[in-house]
């Protein structure tokens, strides 16, 4: 063997190493200077961006992944909802300020404690030109309520649904459900064109199938793996709210590519998955950033594994956690340290009451003071430190890296041992369904949100029978209050009950709240009008987008 031949493959290693160094150096050249601070300081906050000044021909919108289907009874994650909220309409409609108003239903009335009557509009037309009928509505609701459908839990209290007039549907419940009407503004309230769905059969929701909806935009073309195009619905029944754009193209890419697409002008907007992405976008003079209300909160969710069974340990960790640090490090300052497991977007009624109650909550400081740490140490002493280290799950992504590091730091400060276990991203969602996965960690971090603007919709998760009450928090008084709140339709009375539930939940630290992430939108300065709240998941936001200039 010739000597040179022996080392030929490894000369390549040197080249690769050199190339790696070069690439890194190049990235250094392309990136902003090391001292550049990306923390945005002048991001506007509100339910909408400024109203569009005029119509627009077309624009391109970025999402983080391709939808799996547009049959929302099968799957309805952020990508599907962001698009289909413009195509399909609901009996009720979530507004940009996260309140709920009647929509395809002209009126929704509780006629008794257990009966709600929907009076339907007569002027609604589907995209194929056929009118919406009570039969379509009843059939759609039955489809949503069917076992296995994505929104079937919204119909858990429903015992009967019937057509009680040409334009009337009556729903009967086993008990009064105060949040049922709000649920009808979500995907459980979508009205489908029965004829179209049945004609498509199993093909409905696939790239080749037409939509079966009545919204201001209709599905024009889904080029699998590439893009989805919506066009303005001709003769939209609600002419005052017709789309301002003729065509909207959706493309998908990761956060980095979205930043590049927006700064280069290849795309005109995106609702950002992580507010941290807004940092580099704010440096661009072509892009505007806005934030709006949402219910989203990142929490550390305690599991049944054992180390956190004693609520004093959970309280101690909550007291020692540096939420301000997490908000800054993980979200570039665009998230807020938060004391409760659900965000202010859920305060859809009695907002001042909820706000005052939130301010009064204790036990989850933005930055732990020495007093907080002393109190936490005392709690640990009383409870006794767990024999095994507390294990916090991480998926290796940036936000969870920060949260798990912060938890380990908090534990160390109060004399507890904590360690991190990494779970693959693809498997991470299984924490909610897989007990064997939860057996690997005492805490897992996740962003949780609800589709209803009512805290009761969240706090039902603390009932002793709730699926996500992994740590087995049990209180008879809490369970009774959940039932009472769900059956109370008077807003003031329900708000009082919801606040009681919030207090009990946060006192027991069922989950450790970390940070509230408002909805964040990045949009070219050439367009305007899109809501900046989390309503984009259910409200036809794209119809409001037009040119920012007349």
């Amino acid at each position, binding site marked *: 063997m010739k000597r040179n031949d022996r080392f030929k493959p490894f000369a390549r*290693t*040197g080249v*690769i*190493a050199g190339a*790696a160094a070069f690439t890194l150096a190049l990235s250094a050249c392309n990136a902003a200077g*090391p001292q550049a601070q*990306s923390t945005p300081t002048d991001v506007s906050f509100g339910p909408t961006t400024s109203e569009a000044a005029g119509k627009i021909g077309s624009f391109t919108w970025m999402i983080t992944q391709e939808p799996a289907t547009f049959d929302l009874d099968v799957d309805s994650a952020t990508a599907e909802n962001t698009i289909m909220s413009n195509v399909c309409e609901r009996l009720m409609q979530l507004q940009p300020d996260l309140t709920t108003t009647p929509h395809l239903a002209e009126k929704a009335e509780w006629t008794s404690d257990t009966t709600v009557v929907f009076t339907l509009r007569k002027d609604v037309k589907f995209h194929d030109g056929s009118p919406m009928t009570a039969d379509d509505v009843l059939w759609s609701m039955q489809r949503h309520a069917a076992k296995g459908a994505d929104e079937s839990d919204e119909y858990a209290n429903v015992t009967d649904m019937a057509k009680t007039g040409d334009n009337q549907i009556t729903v009967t419940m086993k008990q009064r459900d105060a949040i049922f009407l709000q649920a009808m503004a979500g995907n459980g309230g979508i009205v489908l064109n029965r004829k179209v769905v049945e004609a498509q059969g199993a093909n409905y929701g696939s790239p080749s199938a037409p939509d079966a909806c009545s919204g201001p935009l209709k599905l024009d073309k889904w080029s699998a793996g590439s893009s989805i195009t919506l066009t303005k619905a001709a003769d939209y029944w609600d002419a005052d709210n017709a789309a301002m754009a003729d065509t909207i193209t959706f493309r998908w890419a990761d956060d980095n590519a979205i930043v590049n697409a927006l700064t280069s002008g290849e795309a005109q907007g995106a609702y950002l998955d992580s507010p941290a992405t807004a940092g580099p976008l704010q440096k661009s003079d072509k892009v505007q950033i806005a934030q709006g209300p949402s219910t989203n909160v990142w929490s550390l969710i305690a599991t049944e594994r054992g180390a956190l069974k004693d609520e004093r340990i959970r309280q101690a960790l909550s007291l020692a956690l540096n939420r301000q*640090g997490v908000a800054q*490090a993980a979200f570039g300052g665009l998230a807020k340290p938060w004391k409760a497991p659900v965000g202010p977007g859920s305060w859809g009624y009695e907002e001042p009451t909820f706000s005052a109650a939130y301010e009064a909550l204790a036990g989850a400081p933005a930055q732990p003071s020495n007093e907080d740490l002393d109190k936490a140490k005392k709690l640990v002493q009383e409870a006794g430190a767990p024999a095994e280290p507390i294990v916090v799950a991480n998926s290796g992504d940036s936000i969870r890296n*920060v949260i798990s590091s912060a938890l380990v730091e908090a534990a160390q400060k109060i004399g507890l041992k904590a360690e991190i276990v990494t779970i693959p991203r693809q498997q991470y969602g299984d924490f909610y369904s897989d007990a064997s996965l939860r057996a690997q960690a005492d805490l897992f971090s996740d962003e949780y949100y609800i589709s209803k603007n009512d805290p009761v919709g969240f706090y039902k998760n603390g009932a002793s029978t709730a699926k996500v009450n992994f740590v087995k928090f049990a209180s008879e008084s809490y369970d009774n209050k959940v039932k009472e709140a769900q059956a109370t339709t008077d807003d003031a009375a329900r708000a009082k009950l919801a606040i009681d539930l919030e207090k009990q939940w946060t006192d027991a630290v069922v989950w450790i709240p970390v940070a509230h992430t408002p909805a964040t939108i990045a949009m070219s300065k050439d367009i305007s009008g899109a809501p900046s709240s989390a309503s984009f998941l259910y409200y036809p936001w794209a119809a409001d987008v037009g040119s920012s200039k007349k």
Partner: protein
Amino acid sequence: MSSLSTSTLASTPVIGRKKRDVAYLVSLGFLIVVVAAALLAPWVAPYAANAVDFTAIWQAPGGAHLLGTDQVGQDLFSRLIHGARESLLGPLALLALATVFGVTIGTVAAWNGGWIDVVLARITDVMFAFPGLLFVVLVIAVFGKGPATAIVALALAYAPVIAKFTRSLALAEMARPYVDAYRVQGVGGFFLCVRYIIPNLTPPLLGYLVVLFGEGLMSLATLSFLGFGAQPPSSEWGLMVQEGQSGIIQGHIWPTLVPGAAIAAVVVAVNVVGVRLSDRLNSRFER
């Protein structure tokens, strides 16, 4: 004319050798510093590897943090030094394991020849034909991720390379007269291989392994970057690159650049030292 030509011809190799010597000495010195820093990490590093400081996130090099800080305010210099241990020990362990497998297979194949050689050659061919990274990922998928699995999986992927190399060296060694002389005296194959042949293969093999070390370091760093190797809160360099990449988009390049440059520098230095070392060892071996 003649004297000028002679002088020119004579001086070129001297300059070339000097350049090589400088590169060799600089690389060797750098590696000694890195190894020393790794060994003395708890005493040399200004901060604990995982000391979080939310008041000092994303800091550029300078001041209290020589190489800057990462997303949670961890000192990059300290993490680099602590991470050097795992980053350097990993390839060492994988090469030790791969060498045991590879040298055994290569020597057995060369010594026995015949069907044993053919079977072992085909097995190593199959291993060669299978994309290395894919093989390693498959092994990790079966046995679970983590540094230990990554090391064993890579050792299995590297073993055929070492086996082939060893076999060719062993065949050359077996052609030497002393082997026949021992055979005539009735010395057994196992004893002959262990006592004489394998030790004689050590010089070229060692040079080869030094260079292979760089590749092992890159492979392990790649696996950690992909999430298959070292796991948080480890400060292994590949994992540091992975953790730092979220900062690039926000203009914070140091958390990626620092460990990335460390990997590149160590690999280049190891290659320079390895090539020089193998030159020297090979010239002795050939003599």
